[in-house]
């Protein structure tokens, strides 16, 4: 899932300066699970902004809406009527969701209420950890099911650097050394042999370095005729 963090109230207030009719748009998917952009968080932020507006005379009229998934056009169309006449939409979805609604409603300003952080997972209540680097060429089969791209501060592919000590990464005591974990996992799996052979330089072309990625599932692509039959939406 996508992990995000809400921007500070002062940062959000600064973005909304000069706007009047504002729609806060939440998303029930990832950002609801990581407690930053679901219905509840939308309500809390809306109240905070209303309070701030009345205290500081900002003149904001704040409305709330939350959709199932802001990143999918099928769900984001639900916003249509609510977006009408607004000066700004403050999106509490991830950057993907915010961009989807901006592309669907190009006449209104879409502002990001969140900082989208990473692809991760809830570790325990209230703790979310980055897990995948989205490099486009998965190596988990070589690394005991632990991603060195996302979880090693240097994305090393050939074992821990000289800064790994006591299972901790050199960048901070709160950060586990991914390679210590990989070593332990491969030891448990009886596959320490995988650490013996040098892994050559990685092909970063399928990663972000190769430019924005476009993935096409040919069997799912609609023909022009099918698109027309669906009413022009694809």
């Amino acid at each position, binding site marked *: 899932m996508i992990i995000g963090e809400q921007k500070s109230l002062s940062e959000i207030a600064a973005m909304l300066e000069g706007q009047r009719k504002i729609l806060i748009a939440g998303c029930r998917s990832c950002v609801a699970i990581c407690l930053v952009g679901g219905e509840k968080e939308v309500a809390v932020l809306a109240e905070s902004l209303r309070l701030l507006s009345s205290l500081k005379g900002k003149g904001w009229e704040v409305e709330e809406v939350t959709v199932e998934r802001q990143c999918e056009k099928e769900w984001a169309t639900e916003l249509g009527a609510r977006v009408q006449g607004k000066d700004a939409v403050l999106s509490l979805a991830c950057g993907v969701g915010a961009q989807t609604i901006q592309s669907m409603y190009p006449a209104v300003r879409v502002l990001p209420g969140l900082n989208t952080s990473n692809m991760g997972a809830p570790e325990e209540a209230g703790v979310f950890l980055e897990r995948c680097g989205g490099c486009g060429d998965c190596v988990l089969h070589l690394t005991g099911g632990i991603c060195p791209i996302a979880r090693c501060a240097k994305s090393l592919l*050939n074992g*821990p650097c*000289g800064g790994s000590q006591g299972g901790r990464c*050199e960048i901070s005591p709160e950060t586990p050394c991914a390679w210590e974990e990989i*070593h*332990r996992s491969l030891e448990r799996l009886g596959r320490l042999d995988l650490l*013996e052979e*040098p892994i050559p*330089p990685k092909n970063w072309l399928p990663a972000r370095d190769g430019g924005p990625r476009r993935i096409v599932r040919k069997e799912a692509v609609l023909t022009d005729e099918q698109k027309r039959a669906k009413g022009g939406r694809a």
Partner: protein
Amino acid sequence: MSPRSDLERTLLERRFAVTAEIGPPKSASAESVRRHAREMKGCADAFNLTDNQTAMSRMSSIACAAVLIQEGLEPVVQMTCRDRNRIAMQSDILGASALGVRNVLCISGDHQSFGNMKESKNVYDVDSVQELMILRRMRDEGKLWSGDELEVAPELFLGAAANPFADPFEYRVTRLAKKVKAGADFVQTQSIYDMERFERWMALVRARGLHKRVHILAGVMPLKSHKVALFMKNKVAGMIVPDAVIDRMKNSQDPKEEGVRLCVEQIEHLRDIEGVQGVHIMAMAWEEKVPEIVKRAGLRP
């Protein structure tokens, strides 16, 4: 095979090698490098130039190496994976070779969060093992990693770092073996204060026969004070400084002399360990002490 550098010659002839570190300045003038060069000339086979150590911008290691060559000293250029991708890395190696650099130390590099520009982006297109693979191909096959032929291949003596004090301990020898497989001709270790752990590591190195496949230079760093020792212990990732060392420094009337004496004792001890073929002296911001240490350890006249 004829040696590509004086350092390689010393090691091939089985003479005990000495390398020493010179820290590039935060300056557009190489005057301090020239000063160190004049002070240190003749006390070591080759001199490491660190590459933006602790992730702070300093004069480039290759530029400093060129200055050392002008002064008649042999450089070891350190090249981290933090600041350059494979394109820049190979380009820098061609340039360094043209300037006369032969010894290159391939390292991951300290994470930029250690430095004074923590907000910068790191590269890590390749890691230190992959850096060795790339440089070896340039040397042995006369090709860039892409496969493109080089008109003239670089003559390189390839180095790697080894840290017996980092974890997981059992993996540290595997990692050395991997670096040897990838192309390391020599290794320089992290500073040794925990001699017992270093000897355990060396025993594992010998058990795998690695000491016969790679030249091992044991790292030492003279301490100026017990505060420096405490800093190493608590703040430097991948270092072990036993309390006995800290106490010895603390209880000394003349800590600087004690630091030098301890370093000399360590060198004398390291010389007798089977498989150790030299020492690498890292006298950070204390370069002028290296000739004295080398002399007192009986390594050079």
